[in-house]
């Protein structure tokens, strides 16, 4: 190894030593630094409680620093060792030797320089020298211990330093052992956050809590440690936050939170504003205050099911209405919807009832039936048992099922029964929901022994119709009502309320009376009396009017022109006449009512009724077309103010007025006669009625021992009543006698005798005694008297019936005698006129016989006037006198006057002709009189309607048959020509029969109807048929003939029609529909079916009759067995 190498090696060793020393020193210092840093960091940590980040950073820095220092130390040391540093280059190292070994050091440096410069040394420098030099130095170096060269005091110093540091650190840490322990622990757990120890803590005593919705919560916080001056309370709601400052005076701080409705978060805290304090905020922590909602009913709904009888639809109401209104018996279903799931619920009623709810999730329901007004509320509970607060109160209000109403529509007022024994009931019933029953409740008022009320059902077909008009003909015939009985009835109706029970309403009471026959007769009589009085009044007024008009007539002649007052006067009379006509029409209506009433109650016989009907028609037609025309003409004349015209019209009017008066007078006369006839009829009816009642009473009294007292009293009343009736009958006889005085021919003498005889019988006395005996409870004596009275009454009845027959005969005779006289006179006049006519044939102008003829004619005229007046008189007794008679007389009169006039003027030829015509008229008149008499005799009455009608019917029937046969032949039927001829002959027969009928009924042309055109049509038909023609016209004519024949009948019958049959347009009626019975009214009958089957077998007519009879018997047996 070369010296240089040895020096290098030595230097290397020296460097290494230096490096080692350097390293050791560095290491020790690094440790000391580390310890110091650790101590520092720990101290800082101890005070400041770094955050994990800081701590991690600090610790990191520590180790980085340590690592860096160590690494640096190592690097430096290595760099020194490797000689990379200038500071520890060979030279520098050699310099180290200088300090200690001066020369060596220097020599070393020289060596180093020489060796370093060797390459660059060019001359003067021997390498060997260098080498030797180097060797020497190398050898010298070997004697220099490296340890002596390198200063190792840094190591020692470092060590000391470290020791001191450690000592101090340990001392300090030992003194604040906890402090540093904690700090080091914290540093060790650098990632862990350590709380800086606070000066105080705030502890929430409530913590997380829950309250019920709306409740109040008291918060309280305990402060442990140093009390702050104040703390903040934050209550955070979803929508807002409460931040409040609370003064701290005690370790426990409270705060009240009211009416909590929402969940909130509360926190009590204190905020640090001092930068030197490690903590910024001390908080109690956030507590959650959970507000628990109570169960709440969000929705109610009610289903109201009315009771079935109302037939109302169910209704659903919502909760907005706090009232539930329903009819008693309604089923109410209540449904609720809650805000949360319900565990259970109940409905609590004010009346004490409690109904549990059926719940499902958040819904609940219950039902209850309404019986009374009430209130209820619903409590619900959730799973936690929390209930709803302040539930809504609902009111249950009962609707009233109103009372039904019933009104009697007919009869309108009190009602009088007639023979039909039917009370035509019309009622109107109404109710909100319908009916269960309707009854007619009645009781007798005059039957003292039985004043109970009875009921019969009034049929209601459809009970559910709320408003009905019902009609029912109540047949009271089976109630045992007798004339004189009085009863009252009312209608009661029950509604169909099955819940509270049917409610009842009743109608007004209707008084019903079955008038006695006497009462009925009295009513008729009274009405007729009034009519007569009215007619007499009218006559009087007509008379006055006549006077006025007569006066006006005279003044009219005297005046030159019409004065205003004259005009007014005449107009007034015209108006009066019109009014009189109206009054007579009313009379006619009244008479019609009398006729109807009489018919209904079978008061009079057919004959009297037809006379009354005839009278009624006559009254109606009294304002004849001629009179009306005369009035119209007068009215026009007055308007024209033409004196002449007025005079003529006035004259015409006066004539018609006269006729009007006479006609009215005549009708009054006939009326009076008819009244008398009525009275006779009435007497017979009344006595027979009394006889019937008396007989019946006597029969009861015969076995009267066991009669109760009340029954006897009743019988006594009955007996007395018959007694009064008897007295009343005697009065009637007396009145009739008085009325008969006007008519001498009437058998008033006979009636008087009968009246006297009846008076002598003193029937009333017997009856009164019988009544008295009954009152004294002596039925045997009563029976004797009653029997005696009955016998006498029978006798009286017989007498009256005989009288009635006599009366009829007499009245007929009277009329017939008059007819005969008139006819005789008419024939006489005819004979005379014939003579006059004959005389006129042979004379000529200027003949001296003319005067004689004129005298004869004048006498005939006079006789004719007398005849006319006789006829007028007869017209006042019967309707049988036809107006044609008067017409013919009028014609004859006119012609006779004409004869006289013409003879005076010398016109013999004309007078001859007039005389002939006068004769013809008189003869026609005589014929008419004869026909009237025939008619009277054939009908047995003054009218002859029946026969005429029958005959017309027969003719119509014949015509119809003829029409049909003509039709058949017209269609090309067999027979042809000969058949048509036969038909013609038959038509001819019908025509002749009709003409004869016409002649017979000429006494009553109005009754004949429109027959005038019929004959003409018949003639044309005959003509066609004879000519073997059956044309369309022929058929039509035949149809027309038949129609007219039938219409003629109809016009007859029309007289008998009730006034109310005159067509009056009806008003539509709205009512409930009837319903068909399930069997459609068909009652199957095996018998009937068998009968029909048997009859369809085609047996002979006789055998069929036997079969029918057989089945009839079987049917009767069947009915009996069913009953």
């Amino acid at each position, binding site marked *: 190894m070369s010296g240089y190498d040895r020096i290098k090696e030595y230097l290397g060793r020296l460097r290494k030593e230096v490096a080692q020393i350097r390293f050791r020193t560095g290491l020790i210092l690094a440790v000391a630094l580390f310890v110091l840093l650790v101590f520092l960091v720990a101290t800082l940590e101890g005070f400041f409680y770094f955050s994990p980040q800081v701590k991690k950073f600090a610790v990191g820095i520590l180790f980085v620093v340590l690592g860096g220092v160590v690494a640096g130390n190592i690097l430096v040391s290595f760099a020194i060792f490797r000689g990379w540093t200038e500071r520890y280059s060979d030279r520098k190292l050699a310099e180290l030797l200088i300090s200690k070994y001066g020369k060596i050091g220097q020599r070393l440096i020289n060596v180093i320089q020489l060796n370093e410069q060797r390459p660059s040394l060019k001359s003067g420098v021997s390498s060997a020298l260098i080498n030797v030099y180097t060797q020497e130095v190398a050898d010298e170096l070997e004697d220099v211990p490296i340890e002596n060269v390198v200063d190792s005091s840094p190591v020692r110093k470092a060590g000391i330093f470290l020791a001191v540091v450690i000592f101090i650190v340990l001392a300090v840490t030992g003194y604040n052992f906890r402090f540093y322990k904690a700090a080091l622990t914290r540093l060790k757990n650098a990632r862990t956050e350590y709380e800086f120890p606070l000066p105080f803590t705030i502890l929430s005593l409530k913590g997380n809590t829950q309250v019920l919705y709306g409740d109040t919560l008291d918060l309280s916080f305990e402060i442990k440690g140093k009390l702050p001056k104040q703390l903040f309370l934050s209550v955070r709601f979803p929508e807002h936050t409460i931040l409040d400052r609370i003064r701290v005076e005690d370790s426990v701080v409270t705060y009240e939170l009211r009416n909590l409705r929402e969940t909130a978060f509360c926190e009590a805290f204190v905020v640090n504003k001092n930068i030197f304090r490690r903590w910024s905020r001390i908080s109690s922590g956030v507590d959650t205050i959970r507000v628990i909602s109570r169960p709440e009913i969000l929705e109610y709904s009610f289903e109201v099911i009315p009771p079935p009888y109302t037939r109302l639809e169910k209704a659903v109401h919502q909760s907005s209405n706090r009232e539930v209104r329903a009819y008693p018996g309604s089923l109410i279903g209540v449904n609720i919807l809650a805000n949360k799931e319900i565990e259970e619920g109940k409905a609590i009623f004010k009346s004490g009832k409690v109904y549990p709810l059926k719940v499902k999730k958040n819904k609940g329901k219950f039902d209850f039936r309404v019986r009374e007004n009430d209130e209820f509320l619903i409590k619900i509970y959730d799973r936690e048992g929390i209930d709803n607060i302040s539930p809504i109160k609902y009111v249950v209000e009962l609707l009233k099922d109103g009372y039904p109403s019933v009104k009697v529509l007919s009869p309108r007022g009190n009602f009088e029964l007639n023979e039909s024994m039917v009370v035509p009931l019309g009622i109107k019933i109404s109710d909100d929901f319908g009916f269960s029953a309707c009854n007619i409740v009645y009781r007798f008022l005059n039957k003292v022994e039985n004043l109970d009320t009875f009921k019969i059902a009034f049929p209601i077909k459809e009970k559910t119709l709320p408003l009905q008009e019902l009609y029912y003909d109540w047949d009271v015939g089976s109630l045992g009502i007798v004339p004189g009985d009085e009863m009252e009835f009312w209608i009661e109706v029950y509604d169909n309320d099955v819940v509270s029970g049917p409610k009842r309403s009743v109608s007004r009471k209707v008084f019903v009376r079955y008038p006695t026959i006497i009462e009925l007769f009295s009513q008729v009589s009274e009405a007729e009396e009034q009519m007569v009085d009215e007619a007499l009044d009218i006559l009087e007024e007509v008379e006055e009017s006549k006077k006025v008009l007569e006066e006006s007539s005279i003044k009219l002649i005297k005046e030159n022109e019409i004065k205003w007052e004259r005009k007014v006067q005449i107009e007034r009379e015209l108006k009066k006449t019109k009014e009189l006509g109206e009054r007579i029409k009313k009379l006619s209506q009244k008479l019609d009512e009398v006729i109807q009433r009489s018919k209904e109650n079978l008061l009079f016989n057919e004959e009297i009724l037809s006379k009354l009907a005839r009278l009624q028609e006559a009254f109606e037609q009294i304002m004849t077309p001629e009179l009306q025309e005369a009035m119209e003409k007068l009215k026009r004349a007055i308007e024209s103010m033409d004196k002449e015209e007025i005079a003529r019209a006035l004259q015409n009017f006066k004539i018609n007025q006269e006729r009007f008066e006479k006609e009215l007078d005549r009708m009054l006369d006939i009326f009076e006669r008819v009244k008398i006839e009525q009275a006779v009829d009435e007497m017979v009816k009344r006595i027979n009625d009394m006889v019937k009642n008396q007989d019946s009473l006597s029969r009861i009294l015969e076995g009267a021992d066991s009669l109760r007292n009340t029954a006897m009293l009743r019988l006594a009343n009955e007996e007395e009543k018959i007694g009064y009736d008897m007295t009343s009958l005697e009065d009637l006889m007396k009145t009739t006698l008085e009325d008969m005085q006007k008519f001498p021919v009437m058998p008033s003498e006979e009636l008087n005798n009968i009246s006297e005889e009846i008076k002598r019988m003193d029937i009333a006395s017997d009856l009164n005694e019988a009544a008295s005996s009954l009152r004294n409870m002596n039925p045997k004596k009563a029976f004797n008297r009653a029997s005696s009275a009955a016998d006498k009454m029978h006798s009286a009845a017989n007498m009256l019936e005989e009288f009635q027959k006599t009366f009829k005969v007499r009245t007929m005779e009277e009329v017939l005698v008059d007819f005969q006289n008139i006819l005789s006179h008419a024939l006489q006049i005819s004979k005379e006129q014939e003579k006059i006519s004959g005389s006129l044939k042979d004379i000529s102008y200027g003949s001296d016989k003319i005067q004689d003829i004129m005298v004869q004619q004048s006498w005939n005229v006079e006789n004719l006037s007398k005849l006319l007046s006789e006829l007028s008189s007869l017209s006042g007794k019967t309707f049988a006198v036809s107006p044609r008679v008067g017409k013919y007389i009028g014609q004859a009169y006119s012609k006779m006057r004409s004869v006289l006039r013409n003879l005076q003027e010398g016109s013999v030829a004309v007078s001859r002709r007039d005389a002939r015509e006068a004769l013809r008229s008189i003869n026609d008149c005589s014929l008419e009189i004869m026909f009237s008499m025939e008619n009277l005799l054939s009908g047995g009455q003054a009218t002859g309607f029946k026969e005429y009608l029958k005959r017309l019917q027969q003719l119509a029937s014949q015509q119809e048959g003829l029409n049909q046969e003509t039709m058949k032949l*017209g269609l090309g039927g067999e027979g042809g020509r000969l058949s048509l001829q036969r038909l013609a002959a038959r038509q001819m027969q019908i025509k002749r029969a009709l003409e004869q009928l016409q002649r017979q009924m000429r006494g009553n042309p109005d009754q004949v109807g429109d027959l005038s055109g019929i004959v003409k049509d018949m003639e044309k038909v005959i003509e066609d048929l004879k000519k073997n023609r*059956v044309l369309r016209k022929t058929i039509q004519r035949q149809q027309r003939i038949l129609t007219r024949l039938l219409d003629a009948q109809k016009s007859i019958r029309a007289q008998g029609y009730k006034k109310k049959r005159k067509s*009056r347009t009806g008003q539509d009626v709205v009512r409930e529909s009837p319903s068909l019975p399930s069997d*459609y009214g068909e009652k199957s009958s095996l018998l009937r079916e068998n009968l029909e089957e048997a009859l369809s077998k085609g047996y002979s007519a006789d055998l069929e009759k036997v079969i029918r009879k057989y089945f009839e018997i079987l049917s009767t047996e069947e009915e009996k067995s069913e009953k």
Partner: protein
Amino acid sequence: MKKLALLVFIVLLFPLLYSQVEKDYSKVAIALLKYGGGGDWYGDRNALPNLARFVNQNLPVRVSEEVKIVSPMDDDLFSYPYIFMAGHGNVRFTEEEVLRLRKYLTSGGFLHADDDYGMDKYFRREIKRIFPNNELVELPFDHSIYHIYYDFPHGLPKIHEHDGKPPQGFGIFYKGRLVVFYSYETDLGDGWEDPEVHHDPEEKRLQALKMGANILLYSLLY
């Protein structure tokens, strides 16, 4: 000679040719029933032709306007599907007539009876003889006779006032078929008369004709 015979033949034939009365077989014939008892069976003679005319003008059926009169014993009774009777009074059928009418009605015939006022009790008596086992039942307002062509929701219209009662339509059913229709307290026949007869408002006449048309049509269809 031959010419003369021919001439005579023609002359004889001529009337026969002219005597042919037209008969339209395409039209339905209706008839008025003639009955005994004294009642005025002929009262509504002009009414029926008016009804027939109305039907022809307004309904899809053709009815002969030449109304026949038929008695129960007539041979051609069965030719009329519809017969009408009305009146104010008594109705009386003989035994034979009762049987004949029953035969007619049970074999497809139809009787319409209309009370002109006063016929009611007689008609009821007689119809009971014809149908002893069948009651007159009031038809409900929904029966097809009230709706078959024109609608009458309240049943029969009230044409004329009689006794102040509501109008009623009664029927007799035979084996489920309506064979008799009886209009009471209305007087349909009067409503069919010419306007100048009763001076009813036109509306009333029309109602009566419409109801009559319904009844007639019903009789033809059922």
